[in-house]
């Protein structure tokens, strides 16, 4: 091979490389300031409000569809598609709808759409439909007139208004036109479930513009949105999946993306906060980090043994060192949740008291090896090691074991398979203490992984039942808080902390507000750019 031909080939290769690099340039550019770029590590799961229950699909649903009422941090929900509502008995709920709301195909939103949407959600029976299991049946919701809709529950349910923040309205005519005849829902065929995997049928401020599965999706602004548009709002939103924290860090630091959601490790936010163009808002979340104790398995069926463990755990180290800062736990109801009672005892470390309770227990500390099972993600592993070391001070042996999530949820379902200790997060799905009391300490919730304590106290059960049927929010929340205090006294878990909600935001983004209910802070319509 001659030198000449070699150099010619090298030159050709270099030319092609340069040409290719020149095509790459637009992708790296920051681009249009009216485009918001969000990155997440969560996998996409479609655009159907009947299926969603996670944060990432929550973001899609929240931007493409709308609920009747919208959650407010520390307060009752405010009207959204519904302008007003009324329920004298907490059993029949009547909502007056906002007029002038358009779906993305230009049709007006009417009461029949609300009826179609709730019946569809209850029939499909997935996602957040569990919130109304046994309370609301398909066919019982009626359109009184074009702008009035009436929900008739099986029995009074006080937190109904709070729970319907997770109910989103679809365009019924558009959906019927895009429903496959064959499907598992009888006359409703597939209920349009196949169609909503790559399309939307909502009235939200954005419409779905583009989907690249497992990679990215884009929304574009819906010009006829009833809320109108102001200067400096985003015309386009791009959501990109990024699996690696190191990649996410580079992207936000370089200004290639505007927003990183809450699912990165604590160190990620601590590090990116040092970047000059990035801010990391830290807000106490309506979220709980707690270590569940299986109250049905010896020795944890003994209240004194559980109390000893509660006092032996080093909460300060867990909160300050492991979690990088959080609000110290004070029972199951998060401190920013309506109904939180500040007089609930704080999580306390007191080895002397721990030994005192252990002495009262009918079990000896070295009689058992206790299982501590966790998913290998986030803070669970360091917390498990800290827990193991703390319990060793009492002579209690802890076997820590990382498991996969489907294994943990299956184990947690029954008292004889649930581990002695199971640490989890519980994020508010609706703004009510109901999820943190009924959802965790009422026998009806046993089987769920947030009820792995398998706790049952007739007095608590009665109080929660009474709270659920109480229409008055203040009285209802007081009942929940009182029930929670009894659960704390019974030491059903270690309520370690109310973690901070952290996101990384480019400083050009303004108006970011944390709401507390999962994904509701990711509504791009509320944001502005500089």
């Amino acid at each position, binding site marked *: 091979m001659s030198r000449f031909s070699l150099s010619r080939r090298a030159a050709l290769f270099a030319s092609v490389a340069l040409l*290719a*690099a020149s*095509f*790459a340039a*637009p*992708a*790296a550019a920051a*681009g*249009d300031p009216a*485009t918001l*770029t969000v990155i997440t590590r969560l*996998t996409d*799961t*479609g655009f*159907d409000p009947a*299926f969603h*229950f*996670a944060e990432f*699909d929550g973001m899609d649903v929240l931007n493409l569809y709308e609920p009747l009422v919208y959650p407010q941090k520390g307060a009752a929900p405010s009207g959204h598609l519904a302008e007003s509502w009324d329920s004298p008995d907490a059993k029949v709920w009547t909502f007056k709808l906002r007029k002038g709301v358009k779906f993305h195909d230009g049709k007006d939103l009417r009461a029949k759409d609300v009826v179609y949407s709730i019946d569809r959600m209850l029939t499909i*029976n*997935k*996602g*957040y439909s*569990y*919130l109304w*299991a046994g309370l609301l049946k398909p066919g019982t919701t009626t359109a009184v007139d074009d702008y009035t809709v009436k929900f008739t529950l099986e029995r009074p349910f006080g937190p109904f208004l709070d729970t319907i923040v997770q109910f989103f309205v679809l365009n019924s005519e558009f959906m019927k036109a895009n429903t496959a005849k064959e499907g*598992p829902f009888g006359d409703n065929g597939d209920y349009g479930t*196949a169609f*909503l*995997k790559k399309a939307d049928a909502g009235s939200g401020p954005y419409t779905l513009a*583009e989907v*690249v*599965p*497992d*990679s*990215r999706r884009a929304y574009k602004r819906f010009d006829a949105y009833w809320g109108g548009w102001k200067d400096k709002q985003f015309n386009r939103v*791009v959501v*990109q*999946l*990024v*699996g*690696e924290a*190191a*990649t996410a860090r*580079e*992207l936000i630091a370089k200004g290639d993306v505007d927003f990183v959601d809450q699912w990165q490790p604590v160190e990620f936010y601590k590090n990116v906060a040092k970047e000059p163009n990035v801010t990391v808002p830290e807000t106490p979340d309506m979220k709980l980090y707690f270590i569940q104790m299986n109250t049905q398995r010896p020795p944890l069926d003994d209240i004194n043994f559980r109390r000893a463990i509660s006092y032996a755990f080093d909460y300060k180290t867990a909160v300050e060192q492991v979690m990088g800062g959080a609000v110290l736990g004070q029972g199951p109801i998060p401190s920013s949740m309506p109904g939180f009672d500040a007089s609930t005892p704080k999580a306390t470390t007191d080895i002397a008291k721990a030994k005192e309770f252990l002495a009262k227990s009918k079990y000896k500390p070295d009689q058992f090896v206790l299982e501590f099972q966790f998913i290998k993600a986030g803070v669970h592993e360091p917390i498990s090691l800290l827990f193991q070391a703390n319990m060793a001070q009492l002579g209690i042996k802890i076997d820590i074991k990382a498991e*996969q*999530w*489907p*294994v*943990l*949820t*299956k184990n947690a*379902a029954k008292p004889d398979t649930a581990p002695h200790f199971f640490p989890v997060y519980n994020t508010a799905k609706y703004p009510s203490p109901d999820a943190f009391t009924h*959802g965790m300490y009422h026998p009806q*919730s046993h*089987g*769920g*992984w*947030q009820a792995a304590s398998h706790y049952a106290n007739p007095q608590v059960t009665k109080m929660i039942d009474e709270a659920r049927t109480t229409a008055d929010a203040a009285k209802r929340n007081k009942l929940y808080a009182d029930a929670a205090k009894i659960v704390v006294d019974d030491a059903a878990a270690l309520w370690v902390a109310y973690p901070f909600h952290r996101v990384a935001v480019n400083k050009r983004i303004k108006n970011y507000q944390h709401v507390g209910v999962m994904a509701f802070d990711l509504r791009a319509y509320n944001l502005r750019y500089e």
Partner: protein
Amino acid sequence: MTMRFVVRRFFELAVVLGGLAILIFVISRVLPGDPIRYALGPNASPQQIEQMRTEMGLDESLPVQFIRLVEGSIAGNFGRSTIPPFGSVGIDIATYLPASLELAFFAMILAIALGVPLGVTAALYRDRWPDQASRVLAFSGVAIPVFWLALMIQLVVAFRLGWLPALGRIGRNVAPPIDVTGFYLIDSLLAADIGLFFHCLTFLVLPALALAASPLAMIMRLVRASMLEEMGKDYVLTARANGMPRVLVVYKYMLRNAFSATLTIVGLLVGYFVGSAFIVETVFSWPGLGRYGVRALQFKDFNAIVAVTLVVGIAYAAANTVVTVLYGWLDPRLRLSERK
């Protein structure tokens, strides 16, 4: 080549795939954990869980479930996923496989296009600096973990130097080509959009480089060893003594003879590229089958686990069958031995 030889190879392929299907079905069913509870969220009612079990056919006996799986697999429909939105696994595979295949083919081209000439060069310059340099390159390629290499390539080439894009298959503000084959390069050419073709090509380079590093090193060392073996043979000496140009001797005669061992590796690599891309796909946010498979394992998505394993198994088995058939074509001794 006899038809009998080819038919026999394909019959063996069918047996292997049947065995694989049984094995992976049993493993996926005995894995601990309950995917339905995850799929329906933390507070799903027992009635919801039962309804979904019935919808998924998980209330049927295991033999019936297996028969349905085989029927579905033959039809290209592997049942429904247990991950929301509970879509057809067959459609998921069809969505993600082209991205993985595109990456795998490009990585294989890189590995061969760089590995073979570097291996030849190392042999020709034995124990001199090109050989030493290629040795360092080869050992590094094999020894460096692929996740670290992928992160470093991304950090340096994409973020620090800004030469090539860091993630995805296409720019954030660029619309993908009209979906015909699922291969962006082919689809952009079919759309006669050369700009988009080169744009997509830039996104392929870094993940393909990370994926190709280890196979490239293997090919390089194998070609070097085979070439050294060929160098000592009489026909090379004869050719050179008769004045045949060195380039012709090396590339036309020696390399052809030396390439049969490399062909074995290349056959295996097809499966390796499809099956081992998950780390690279994660780092570069490449929406391929690897990421889909990892997610299926994490959440015990029965049907998806079986489907991904079968697809990777088919890739391995089919590539090896093709290599065996090619061997038979290249080497008459092999196919003639079948007749005995």
